[in-house]
């Protein structure tokens, strides 16, 4: 009895294995024996409208797929354009100039001197940073020049690069924080710094504020240099015990624009520049005195 059962079972398994699942199975015969004449006209109409809706959806899908394809092509074109622009940017930045800069040929260089005053040589010959105490005056000197090289560019034949307006910012990065209040630079009276009281005399223009920049009160002709500062005082009244022991970095950022009075009056450039400086430059320009002293 058991052998007969196993034999049948094996046969069934063999039958199951013989089924080709890749081919669609034929639809099973209708189980209902309802006469077709008994299907109502209403049901037929429903079936027809369903078929119609399917066709509509199919058409819609077709149209949308077509539109989608077009949009995809447009997007690909835009991405390619973007990549081309980015490559052009990288090439230009890598060269350190732009097409417009080459046309204008503005030149600028800056250098901090006496950096060695911030370090000491230990007895073992190792160089390490010297600790700065509150109230220390460090003889760091920095200068700017209207040339590509801080030592000056060779004289050019033909068109000379233009004079420039210069501004600079002195910042102490202390523990990831930018501090403008600690360092007091020693400088000549050729730099203009925002002062709230002075600004009041010129009326608020809604754009000027203390942007921490020092603005040069004259234009700087080609190859001329100007001292930014000759020493830095670390203000003992500002430094606190919380600042003590921290590493920092002194940064000098210098910017220039072409020395055209319209550039600063229109505030196309340096919109936050003090109104007092703009007025001063305008009065100097009206007087026709564009300094070119070194």
């Amino acid at each position, binding site marked *: 009895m058991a052998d007969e059962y196993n034999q049948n079972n094996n046969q069934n398994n063999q039958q199951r294995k013989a089924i080709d699942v890749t081919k669609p199975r034929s639809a099973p015969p209708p189980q209902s024996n309802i006469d077709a004449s008994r299907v109502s006209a209403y049901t037929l109409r429903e079936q027809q409208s369903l078929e119609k809706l399917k066709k509509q959806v199919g058409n819609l899908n077709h149209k949308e797929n077509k539109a989608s394809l077009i949009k995809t092509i447009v997007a690909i074109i835009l991405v390619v354009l973007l990549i081309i622009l980015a490559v052009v940017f990288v090439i230009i930045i890598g060269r350190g100039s732009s097409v417009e800069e080459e046309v204008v040929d503005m030149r600028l260089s800056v250098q901090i001197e006496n950096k060695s005053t911030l370090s000491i040589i230990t007895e073992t010959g190792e160089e390490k940073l*010297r600790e700065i105490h509150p109230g220390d005056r460090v003889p760091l000197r920095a200068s700017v020049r209207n040339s590509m090289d801080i030592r000056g560019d060779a004289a050019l034949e033909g068109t000379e690069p233009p004079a420039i307006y210069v501004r600079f910012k002195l910042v102490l990065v202390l523990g990831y924080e930018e501090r403008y209040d600690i360092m007091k630079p020693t400088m000549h009276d050729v730099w203009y710094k925002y002062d709230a009281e002075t600004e009041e005399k010129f009326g608020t223009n809604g754009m000027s504020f203390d942007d921490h920049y020092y603005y040069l009160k004259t234009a700087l002709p080609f190859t001329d240099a100007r001292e930014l500062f000759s020493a830095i005082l670390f203000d003992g009244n500002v430094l606190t015990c919380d600042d003590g022991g921290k590493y920092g970095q002194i940064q000098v950022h210098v910017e220039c624009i072409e020395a055209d009075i319209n550039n600063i009056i229109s505030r196309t450039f340096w919109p936050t520049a003090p109104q007092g400086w703009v007025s001063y430059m305008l009065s100097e320009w009206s007087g026709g005195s564009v300094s070119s002293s070194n």
Partner: protein
Amino acid sequence: MIAQKQQNNLNKKIQMQNMIIIALAIVIIVLIVVSSTAAWYIRTKSDSTDLILSRPVNIYITEYTTGQGGETIHTVKKDILEDYDNRIYPGDRVKLNLGMVIGSADDPSSNAFVRVKLQMAFSKLGDNGVEEPIAMEDLRDQRLIEYQNEPDGEMWELIDFNDPEGKLEKNADYVPDYWYVLKTKDAYGNDIAREALDGQTFEFVNGFIKLSKTEITNKHANCSFHILYVVEAIQSKNVPDPVKYPGYGPWYNFMYGDVEDVQG
């Protein structure tokens, strides 16, 4: 229902595609605008150098005892007299062993000048016996302390920082600001402020203090008295010697100037 779902999916897809195209177009337009505007006419250069700021000054209050070998053992305290009943009354004598240490193993200190003062503070007791909080400003004119054992005169110089040269007229409104300044002798035997170095300990008071009976008035009636021990350290670098140059520097509120004025 399925048709509706498909339609929704299609709409979403269309919206996404539109957004991508618009975003790309905006980026390209911005790039073109930026690259063609005057922003290119600004040239920027920078230079930088590194530095390190000196360590801060750190000072800690200590109470000290004498060890079996006769050595002085300082224990850093946050609350002096924490082992005492620190509510005192006129006539009470309080034994103090107060000192200080410059820096610690975790927080080393820069070299510093040190000044110290002991004040007797008081706070009013309310009707229900609850003390009112003491404001530090209220303590400035209190001279209620009498030292039965003065701080070592060879080591501490008493200076009125409001009148370092004793020139002001001492009327009823005058408020002195007495501090003991850590001092030493220079090569010529003159008093100068002593530079306290990292890890050094100093003794300030070793003896008894009590309330000044002459300074106690009716306004101190129904008050709770407290001892206030204040130590201050200031970096010695770039600060004028407070003993040698009275009136100069931050402790005198730059009465006559700062270190460059001394040197000038």
